């Protein structure tokens, strides 16, 4: 690899936008997030005027509205915000660590690995739901590890197509096993099938607090990794020159991404492609510096997931379309676009 002066690689991709944009975009996204959260309180099979939503949130009413907002829509919004944030950040970490624009929780098999493990824990081992997140961790970690190990050998190691195929095959394996388990356990199948489509409906707000330490540690690690990932994007040699240990950074970023994805899967089920789409949109908005991309993605992820959830609630009334289905419908064209534009070792 030829040695380039520091910063040139990033600069040739997208000129670094002015400081104003790097501040304005997140500010606008924050506003958009607030609007989306409020919309997710107000819009649904029962439409509520904003005034009533605010009253209900302040606890001023104990009526039906109160019930809908506090017990149904609040947990749903919380799950959407947390899962969207975690998946988007995990996507940035994976794309940065592998220097591969296609790396993401879905394509690496993390979501289907976590899904399989959850089905095993619920339908086979009959474990209480408080263990769900740990099962998701284990499954997601093993799946990602397998996919990365498979993609990381040989001549075209870690090339986009290698990584995508490894992940696709790991996912194929795990979803087949999931299907087999569901076919064998018809009784538990219904309970899990709904969850497997990736839905925010019927979430329990009590599931979030135990996850907060993991989310906190994950986000802290992400913040500390941002500069190392910038260095890594210049190439391994340049990163070593800058005093980084590429292997260590990759391992840490990978572990953090698995933790965050597992949290998201435990909360919302396997939400397809969110971790792929959001980082790409974020880079288009604020350039490729990891700190900016991470902040933008962390705000954009919840917006996209909540918007998908709201659309899913509205378009098919009285039934609902799971948010995971809609993110797959948005995400796959992004995947196709990235794949057909990706340069180099395809």
């Amino acid at each position: 690899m030829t040695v380039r002066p520091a910063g040139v690689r990033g600069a040739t991709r997208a000129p670094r936008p002015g400081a104003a944009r790097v501040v304005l975009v997140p500010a606008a996204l924050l506003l958009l997030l607030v609007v989306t959260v409020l919309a997710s309180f107000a819009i649904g099979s029962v439409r509520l005027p904003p005034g009533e939503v605010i009253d209900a949130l302040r606890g001023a009413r104990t009526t039906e509205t109160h019930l809908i907002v506090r017990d149904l829509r609040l947990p749903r919004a919380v799950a959407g915000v947390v899962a969207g944030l975690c998946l988007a950040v995990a996507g940035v970490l994976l794309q940065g660590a592998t220097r591969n624009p296609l790396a993401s929780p879905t394509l690496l098999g993390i979501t289907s690995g976590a899904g399989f493990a959850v089905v095993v824990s619920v339908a086979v081992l009959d474990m209480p739901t408080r263990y769900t997140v740990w099962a998701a961790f284990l499954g997601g970690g093993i799946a990602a590890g397998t996919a990365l190990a498979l993609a990381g050998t040989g001549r075209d190691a870690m090339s986009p197509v290698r990584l995508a195929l490894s992940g696709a095959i790991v996912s194929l394996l795990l979803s087949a096993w999931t299907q087999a388990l569901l076919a064998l356990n018809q009784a538990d199948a219904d309970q899990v099938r709904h969850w497997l489509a990736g839905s925010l409906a019927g979430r329990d707000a009590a599931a979030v607090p135990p996850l907060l330490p993991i989310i906190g540690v994950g986000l802290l690690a992400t913040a500390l990794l941002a500069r190392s990932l910038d260095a890594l994007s210049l190439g391994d040699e340049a990163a070593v020159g800058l005093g980084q240990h590429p292997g260590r950074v990759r391992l840490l970023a990978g572990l953090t991404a698995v933790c965050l994805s597992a949290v998201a899967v435990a909360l919302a089920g396997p939400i397809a492609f969110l971790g792929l789409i959001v980082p790409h949109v974020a880079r288009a908005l604020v350039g490729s510096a990891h700190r900016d991309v991470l902040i933008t993605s962390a705000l954009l992820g919840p917006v996209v997931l909540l918007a998908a959830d709201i659309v899913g609630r509205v378009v098919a009334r009285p039934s609902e379309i799971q948010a995971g289905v809609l993110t797959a419908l948005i995400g796959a064209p992004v995947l196709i676009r990235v794949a057909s534009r990706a340069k180099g070792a395809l």
Partner: protein
Amino acid sequence: MTTPSTVLVGRIRPRSIILPSSLALGVLCLMAIALTLGSSDLSLGSAVSAAVGLAEPGEVFIVRELRLPRVLVAVGVGATLGASGTLMQGLMRNPLASPDIVGVTGGASLATVLAISGAAGPTLLPVAAAAGALVATAVLQVLGHRNSSGARLVLIGIGLHAIASAGVTLTIARIPADRLGAAEVWLAGSLHARTWTHVGTILVGAAITLPLAFGLLRHLRTLELGDELAVGAGVRVTRTRHLLLMSSALLAGVAVAVSGPIAFVALGAPHIARRLVGPTSPATLTTAALIGALLVLAADLIGKNLLAPTSLPAGVVTAALGAPYLLWLLHRMGRT
């Protein structure tokens, strides 16, 4: 390799005859076993005599109306899937490309589920599946037309597959309750309750598509030399590529129509065939078709009898057993 001995033997090597014949024998053996096993086990003799109508009416009914159609559909589906994968892998020059990974099976599944949800009759389903497979292939070609490299087509195909599966989930979520069961059984890739109508469909489909595959094979071998050489040899590269992809899609669509998506066969069978008889040739295509038939028959036998009385759909068995093989394959590819 033109060592004197291969020149003397000519184009037909002994192995390219012995291997397909022994595979065909294997298919016949598995068919016989499948006819004897089930909720009431028959002896081989009585199963065969029942198949030709020389047993007591009960046994004749079991064999002729329940088991024989299932077995014949398994053979037809396996053969068309194996042939479909051979064409596609040769075309994309990627041993991991297959109709199930690049979205062709997904397109067929989506079209069929839509047809089921619209209460289409059994005669319309194969048409829908073939149309879905062809549309998916056409989209794949349009999106990948500027960069025809195999790797990019595979990536685009993975995206198409994701869209199709999202569409399937969407359709399943909105399907009328009385048709949900039928759609789910079909989606799992099951050979349960196949009738002579299914046998007719797959026979007609195979009779149309398999000769097409053999006819196009010659061009595929030229394409494998590289585009420049193929043009030099007088092949119209783009048109040939389109024809090959379309016939691969038709083969997969026919199979999906009668059995639902049976994973891994289109991917695994050509691979095993290439290891046994070498690069693309009529012998490879024949071998892949026979191995496909063996795989589907075996998967259905395992799924039906291993955990009896619970039965697993053949598609679940092929995917569950096939995927570890694929992982190993991918691992080995990285080594070489």
